[in-house]
């Protein structure tokens, strides 16, 4: 963004103001996340930077909250982590399968009532979560699935499929259907064609939709708050309870782990997006 030499001084000033504003906004976006890291290593119990931390005294830092997260007595994080992963993994598998198959149908030019059906399918993404929570709770209560893992998994499939449908239909929009016709003309049955031809080509879209579904489930708290019993507690529920009741540095240790996880997911999603764009021939 170097300015041309002929730029007049007051535009030059304006340009630097603009860059300063941008820097401030980027700082506002990213800085809050970095407060968590140092405080999670706090040797003391308070959620403020102690004087020792400000002067970088090594004694002011410790791993005690990480130890507490893993070995603490009566600590809920073990169960919560297990539940979160079980629920998120099954919800992702369900969302990916249902969503991908539906996206295949929606991308067909023969599909009737495309707009209406698309609107219904992605409605869980548009409707405020609190309303989805109430509606899903009513259903699960009637079906006897409240406070069960299955109920929460189904709820998360509802919330996760819109992302899969959107990413996979987007990938399919650049898909050359003549390759499947070629496969068919060479004697391949539809299932075989899908597994050997279509799926490998749309895989980046499927995986990034799956990542969205995973993150949605892993981070979801509103609907789980309605559905979960004590046995079904998840990481977000524990964070929520912790933030409301005893705000302890252990939560920050958990939060640090979650930030690391989200960084990994971000990197994966970015790599997939680029690969997908390359495959679809979108040049940057």
């Amino acid at each position, binding site marked *: *963004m170097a300015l041309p030499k002929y730029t007049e001084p007051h*535009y030059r000033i304006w340009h630097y103001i*603009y860059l300063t504003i*941008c820097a401030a*906004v*980027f700082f*506002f*976006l*990213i800085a*809050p*996340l970095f*407060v*968590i890291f140092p405080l999670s290593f706090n040797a003391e119990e*308070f*959620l*403020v*930077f102690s004087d020792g931390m400000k002067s970088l005294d090594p004694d002011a830092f410790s791993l005690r909250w990480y130890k507490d997260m893993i070995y603490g007595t009566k600590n809920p994080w073990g169960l919560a982590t297990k539940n979160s992963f079980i629920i998120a993994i099954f919800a992702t598998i369900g969302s990916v399968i*249902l969503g991908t*198959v*539906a996206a295949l*149908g*929606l991308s067909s030019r*023969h599909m*009737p009532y495309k707009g209406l*059906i698309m609107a*219904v*399918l992605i*409605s*869980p993404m548009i*409707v*405020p979560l*609190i*309303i989805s*929570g*109430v*509606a*899903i709770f*009513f*259903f699960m209560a009637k079906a006897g699935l409240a406070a069960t893992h299955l109920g929460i998994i189904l*709820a998360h499939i*509802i919330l996760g*499929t819109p*992302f899969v*449908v959107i990413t996979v239909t987007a990938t399919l929009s650049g898909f050359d259907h003549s390759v499947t016709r070629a496969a068919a003309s060479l004697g391949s049955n539809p299932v075989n064609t899908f597994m050997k031809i279509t799926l490998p080509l749309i895989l980046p879209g499927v995986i990034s939709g799956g990542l*969205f579904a995973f993150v949605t489930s892993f*981070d979801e708290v509103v609907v789980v*708050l*309605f559905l979960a019993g004590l046995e079904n507690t998840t990481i*977000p529920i524990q*964070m929520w309870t912790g*933030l*409301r009741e005893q*705000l302890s540095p252990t*939560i*920050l240790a958990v*939060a640090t782990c*979650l*930030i690391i996880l*989200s960084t990994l997911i*971000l990197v994966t999603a970015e790599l997939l997006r680029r690969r997908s764009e390359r495959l679809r021939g979108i040049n940057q």
Partner: protein
Amino acid sequence: MSSETKQILTTDGIPLEVSLKKAERRNKIKAFLLVAPLLLFIIITYVLPIGDMLMRSVDDKMVTQMLPKTFKAMEKWDGKELPEEEVFAAFHSDFIKLVEEKREGKLSTQLNYTKNGFKSIIKKLRRKSKSFEDGNYKEQIMAVHKRWANVEYWQAIKRRAPAYTGQKYLKGMDMFKNESGEIVSVSEDRRIHRVLWLRTLEIAFFVTVFCFLMAYPIAHLLATLPMKYSNLLMICVLLPFWTSLLVRTASWMILLQQQGLVNDFFVGIGLVADDNRPEMMFNKTGSYVAMTQILLPFMVLPLYSVMKTISPSLMRAGKSLGGTPFVAFWKVYFPLTIPGIGAGCLLVFILAIGYYITPALVGGASGTLISNQIAFHMKSTLDWSFASAMGLMLLTGVLAIYWVYNKLVGIDNIKLG
């Protein structure tokens, strides 16, 4: 004979037109069958339960079923003076049955929604009714408590006769049907829901404005920088986007607390005194700051995707035709970004209007939104029909905004990352 010869036949001897139509129909069914599992799943577990919410929000059968004889007897009552003995006798008979089934508590809760003061007089009636003598129930019931001799309470019961009611919706707007059946507002100091609706709109609106003001410059920077720099900066947008909502809220709770870094900074630059640190959390400020940061990526991403498609030569052309950079920006660049602005603003507004978690944690009493009220009625008062009614009112608003979004931008233009 002549028409048949003109028709083109396939190898099976079927006219081509028929055969094509058949193939078309087969393809349609095939496509539909692929969508069907998800569609059915969503309809059964999601769309129908929302319909169920609608039913619950207007359903008032509970009281109707609890007092069948009373309402039958009340049909003849004009509702002006105290009802006749017949109504009292019917009420007594219904009430005795409820007491036997131990359901009179539910009745008192329900009637209390309509008019305050039923709880205690029903309790009293239950105690006294054990020693009631047969006949002349009017006298006996009226003797239990003076409110039973007040016609307003009998009018309140009569108002619960219909099996369906819009009462919960009125309550959601702080209105009710008074004794003469007119719809009026509750007294000014009790209009909690209107305050909440307005506050929800206000916070959603300002959060959208703040997000727009902050997102526009950085989306522009991201779209105009060379790829290798913009990719790096994009991480600043995407990392918060992918990070757990609760983690981001937690970091704001740490930053905004009274001994937090933001206050430290203000004290450090001498803006506030050390012993007079302002409360920035558990009020509206907390909701504003945290929600703006959390929703900002949703504004940046649509703006960025629109700005990337705008060729830089357009601005150069504007300038070369004599416009100052400001004019060129305002007349050329800005109008081209309007689709992105529309998408971003409506997306952020829709998300903000239904926000629950962040306001509940950092909003305190003055920063909570309508969603918090819905959750409160779902979990604490257990008035599910009221929660449903408010949820549907919110949903109607969101769908209206969504409809506008669809008209302006088109549903297919939703971009993720």
